């Protein structure tokens, strides 16, 4: 397993994430897409740290922080989705469009 493999995978993850975010018709799936993106980043950091700077682990630390932040973000996101559901009775993003123009 070389660095390239990791990078390719993370790239795929990232793309999938973006794809999900753009296409899914459900807020939760969008959240998942976002998680994919963030994780692809974490994978990158870890991989780079492992292969480029073996003696320095700062990359892996960043990855850990990334995971934490992703978790926090997911929490907030879910809370907001709840609020949305309360107000709009739906979590389909394209129905949440009173603000426009």
């Amino acid at each position, binding site marked *: 397993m070389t660095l390239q493999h990791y990078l390719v995978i993370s790239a795929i993850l990232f793309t999938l994430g973006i794809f999900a*975010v*753009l*296409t899914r018709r459900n807020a939760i799936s969008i959240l998942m897409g976002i998680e994919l993106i963030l994780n692809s980043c974490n994978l990158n950091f870890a991989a780079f740290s492992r292969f480029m700077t073996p003696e320095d682990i700062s990359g892996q630390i960043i990855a850990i922080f990334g995971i934490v932040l992703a978790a926090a973000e997911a929490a907030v996101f879910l809370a907001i989705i709840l609020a949305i559901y309360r107000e709009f009775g739906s979590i389909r*993003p394209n129905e*949440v*469009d009173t*603000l*426009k*123009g």
Partner: protein
Amino acid sequence: MTVSLISLILLCPLAAFAVFGLLGLVNRRFPRQDYLSTAAMLIALACSFLLLREVVPKPEAHTVNWISLGNVTFSMGFYLDSVTAIMLIVVTLVSSLVHIFSMGYMHGDPRYPRFFAYLSLFSFSMLFLVVSDNLLGIYIGWELVGLCSYLLIGFWFEKDSAANACKKAFLTTRVGDVGMFIGMMMLFAKFKTLSLYGEGGIFALSASQLTTGDMVWLSIAGVLIFCGAIGKSAQMPLHTWLPDAMEGPTPVSALIHAATMVAAGVYLTARMFPILTETSSLVIAYVGGITALVAATIAIVRFDIKRVLAYSTISQLGYMMLAIGAGSYVAGLFHLTTHAFFKALLFLGSGSVIHAFHAMHAHGHDDEHEHDDSEAHEHTHDQGDSDAHGHEHSEDADSGHILGSEIPPDQDMRNMGGLRHKMPITFITMLIATLSISGVPFIFSGFWSKDAILAGVLGRAMEWNSVHHYILFIMALSAAGITAFYMFRLIFMTFFGEPRNQEMHDMAHESPLSMTVPLLVLAVLSLPVVNTLWFNADYVEPPPQPHLHAPTHAYIAPDTKTGRTGLALSLFGVSEAVAAEEDAGHGTQDAHADDGHHGHGPAHTIAMVLSICVAGLGILLSWLFYHRRTLSAESVTTTFRPIYNLFWHKYYFDEFYDGVLVALTVWKARLFAQFDGSVVDGIVNGVGVVTRDILAAFVGFFDNRVVDGLVNRVAQVTWAVGGRIRRIQTGAIQTYLFVVLAGIVLLILIFRAL
């Protein structure tokens, strides 16, 4: 001394006006504005006589810097030579007399004080014009007299005809003035100064600097400046304002539109004499000649007493122009002087007749008379409308001559007749003036001046020695004859024969003293003997020698002689005149002058003889037509209907201009209604109409759509784009995210390429 005199002459009338103006601001009136103005005028008159003594021996000039710039200065100043002095006297004299006359004539007018204030202002401007030693000053006076004539023609501005006439007068003359101004600009661009005299002046410079190469532009400049004179002196083709100007009170007609202002054009041309080239003098001569003849012929068929005189004035002014154009500088000025007196006299006389006739209208006051007069005009006419209608009906007033219905009854000669018993003084004085203008020998001044002109023209023609320049002489001669004819027609129709309108006749009466006295004074002044008391041959300096063009140069000496001869004759009768003529002949030295003179000696005799003959013929004819009635005007009219019509319609000038303008905006049906017949007014209206409809459409389109619209368009586009951008903001979050992605990709692609 002279300076103080001049200042007095100028300031008195100005002060008289200033009093009126300042009090006017607080809506008060000086109780005796009339006395004030008259007194001012009389002082000015006295001063000008004193001045004559002062300056005749030696011309004087006083200048002050008016505007001084880095390397250009415009000066203001007086140039006083005998010509100036004589003009001063003419102006002040006539003006004073008119003032006195007006006290009677205008009595009881609601705007009585204002009338005198205006007269004072006019006198000031005219005097300023006369004494100025530089073109700028002359131009200033020039425009100011224009303003005064505007104010005075429109004095009874409730009358729409008057309101139109005054505007027409101002605009017509202004067209000429613009020409004059362009001429001034040309001279200024060349000489960097506008003052005429002195070594820094235009004359000196033109003498020293100009070469034959400059003749072309100098001729153009000369003609352009003459344009000013064309406007003011109502020469063709800008003459049409003067007859309309008769809408003003009669004293105004006498002062401004006969004696002084209209003569200013002649005066200017005389002043500019030294820089008139061969070509420009020819133009002037022809314009003058044609005007003299045409106007005379038109006058034949008028019935409105004032219009007859108006056309006669135009024709006489043409005479003077012709004289100056032909190089008879002195003769022109001499005729200007004599004409000033007898024409003023004629107008005042007619005024007195008119005045006599209103009395019978049982209206005490002119203004009321003018009111019902204007009501007489007011058929199809409503107030709030544009001036075009006004002109429409002044047009009717003109065409009305044919029916004879639209002439104010008290000015229509067909209501008159046999007045000589009723108003003897008026009759006598007017008769004297008429004899004078028709050039009856030898005791009337008009004869001498006219004769001098004829002589000059003939002599010039001979000197040119090309056949077609004799046309000028022919014109002059026939004009002289016709003048005699229509003037006597006027006299016969007014004062002789049976009263045509009995009840009017019964009411008529001699005018009060204040009016008859001026008549008498002027009558006396039309006798050369009196003139000579102050108008002495020696007074007339030869004009500054122009170095520009040989022929005129050659002609200066003999011309001066002509002038003197004319005057000499006026003093001692023919024989001495001939003698004077002789020594004039021998007196001249250089070869040029000799040729000139050879043509000239006989010229004078021939001219005199012929002029006497035509004058006699004219008088005889009109006697036969209008007194003995052995010949009937009607039958002649019918036989020569086309010619008659030609005269009647004033050579279809008005119709012609209408036609042109109609062609200009033929698609306007109501155009005839909108255009009056005059040139400038027509054109201005034409432009007005064109502006209102075409140009306004254009302006409306251009200014609002194109200029403004461009901006508005930009604004609209901006808005539209704003709207577009808004629509991208759909409110659907995924669209936003897509834009983000697209943005990133685009940025990468773009900068990948870089």
